[in-house]
């Protein structure tokens, strides 16, 4: 593994080695936060051409705990906003000696273009490209589900997981569908027909338009963020109607299985896709997802950067 561009590139054993490494790292950090010297002297660039708080901060925290030097490069106030091409940006980063670039971009495939372009020699990590994929989010979701629901199993065999909301525009949903089904889980997509992509029938999932018929049988539910601008783009009649049919409220929360968990990749619209009471309930692992995100991203950086990628992997 040299780059992390999409879940589709990973084998099941790649995914499990990331999850297992993250688990070892998260147990080691249960005590006082310790800094590890592993990536000392390596430079990691956060190239964020699209707004993000938690993903960028999470990658930054992970890189710093491994002692890497982090350079933050965001769209606002950089030459990206002046229209510099990805190629020129990549060549600049190469000249500065970046060992890895973590890229968030509004164009689907941007990370792939950067990795295949021969403009730079470092690793490329996709932190979200357009409506395509967000692999590190899917890995941290799988990590969180495994910890709470897998009863000590290595993978997610036999679990039922619902992903609810704007599947059409969600890179989190795409990466999660691929990863969770690869790990043996049964994924149910719940959304209004207008927010499901064309061709979704061929995905390894079950589709439902009715949250009430699904909520009682799932082990985990991932609520996706509804972007307010979708209302004006006619995908949804109104916010109130969406909340009523697809929002996670106290009534639906009460009907979930006893050990089941509520997840959200953030940022949340409290009162729209998830009620405040649900987000703050005992079932909610939303804050823990953020914590797990740092461990999973440390594992990704460790596995991509610490060893010599030209040698055979001995995991």
């Amino acid at each position, binding site marked *: *593994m040299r780059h992390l561009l999409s879940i589709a590139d990973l084998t099941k054993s790649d995914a499990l*080695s990331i999850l*297992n*490494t993250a688990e*070892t*790292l998260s*147990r*080691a950090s249960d*005590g006082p936060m*310790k*800094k*590890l*010297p*592993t990536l000392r002297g390596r430079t990691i660039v956060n190239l964020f051409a699209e707004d993000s708080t938690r993903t960028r901060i999470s990658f930054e925290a992970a890189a710093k705990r*491994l002692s890497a030097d982090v350079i933050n490069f965001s769209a606002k106030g950089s030459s990206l906003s002046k229209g510099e091409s990805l190629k020129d940006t990549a060549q600049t980063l190469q000249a500065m000696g970046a060992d890895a670039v973590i890229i968030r971009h509004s164009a689907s495939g941007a990370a792939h273009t950067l990795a295949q372009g021969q403009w730079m020699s470092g690793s490329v990590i996709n932190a979200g490209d357009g409506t395509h994929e967000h692999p590190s989010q899917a890995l941290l979701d799988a990590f969180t589900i495994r910890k709470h629901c897998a009863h000590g199993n290595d993978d997610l065999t036999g679990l039922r997981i619902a992903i609810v909301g704007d599947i059409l525009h969600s890179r989190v949903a795409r990466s999660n569908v691929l990863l969770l089904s690869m790990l043996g889980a049964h994924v149910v997509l719940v959304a209004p027909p207008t927010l499901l992509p064309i061709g979704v029938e061929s995905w390894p999932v079950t589709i439902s338009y009715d949250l009430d018929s699904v909520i009682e049988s799932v082990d985990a539910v991932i609520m996706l963020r509804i972007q307010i601008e979708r209302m004006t783009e006619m995908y949804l009649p109104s916010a109130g109607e969406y909340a009523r049919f697809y929002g996670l409220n106290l009534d639906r929360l009460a009907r979930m299985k006893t050990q089941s968990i509520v997840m959200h990749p953030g940022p949340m619209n409290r009162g729209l896709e998830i009620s405040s009471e649900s987000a703050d309930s005992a079932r909610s692992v939303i804050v823990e997802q953020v914590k797990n995100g740092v461990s999973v991203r440390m594992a990704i950086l*460790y*596995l*991509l950067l*610490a*060893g*010599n*990628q030209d*040698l*055979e*992997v*001995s*995991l």
Partner: protein
Amino acid sequence: MSIALPAPDISRAITRIAHEICERNSGSQLVTLLGIPTRGAHLAQRLAAEIESITGNSVECGTLDITMHRDDLRLRAPRALAPTSIPPLGVEDRHVVLVDDVLFSGRTIRAALDALGEVGRPKTVQLAVLVDRGHRQLPIKADYVGKNLPTSPQQIIKVHLSELDGVDEVLLEEVAG
């Protein structure tokens, strides 16, 4: 390939090292054993059991993974991590005995000293190894040695332990060419 240390010798070496650890530290009250995964961790557990049968008291025993502190990470393929578990009393003001299977270049132990420094400040740090094969690249010396095995740098030492490999033995392999 020849057997450099058969099972009875390994067992006697562990018993002797257990006695030496008790002698050096006036018992085992202040001793914490930390095994370096994978085989060092199993050796530490055997030492702990042996010390308990000598002194009648339980002894603190854990593991210390040193992978993230290695200086040769970039020379090798990515390595899997092993768990670190520090026993309840910690390492502060204790006599910490690091336990590993083979002492060779000394780089693993250097990394272990770094990793240990992150955990706390022991009163002393001592080193117990099953086999010392020489060829040190750093100024590091073991306090307790099961067996000194003179080797050439091209030879390969393989330690097999019954917990993992079904049999206790130390093998010495020649590399052709």
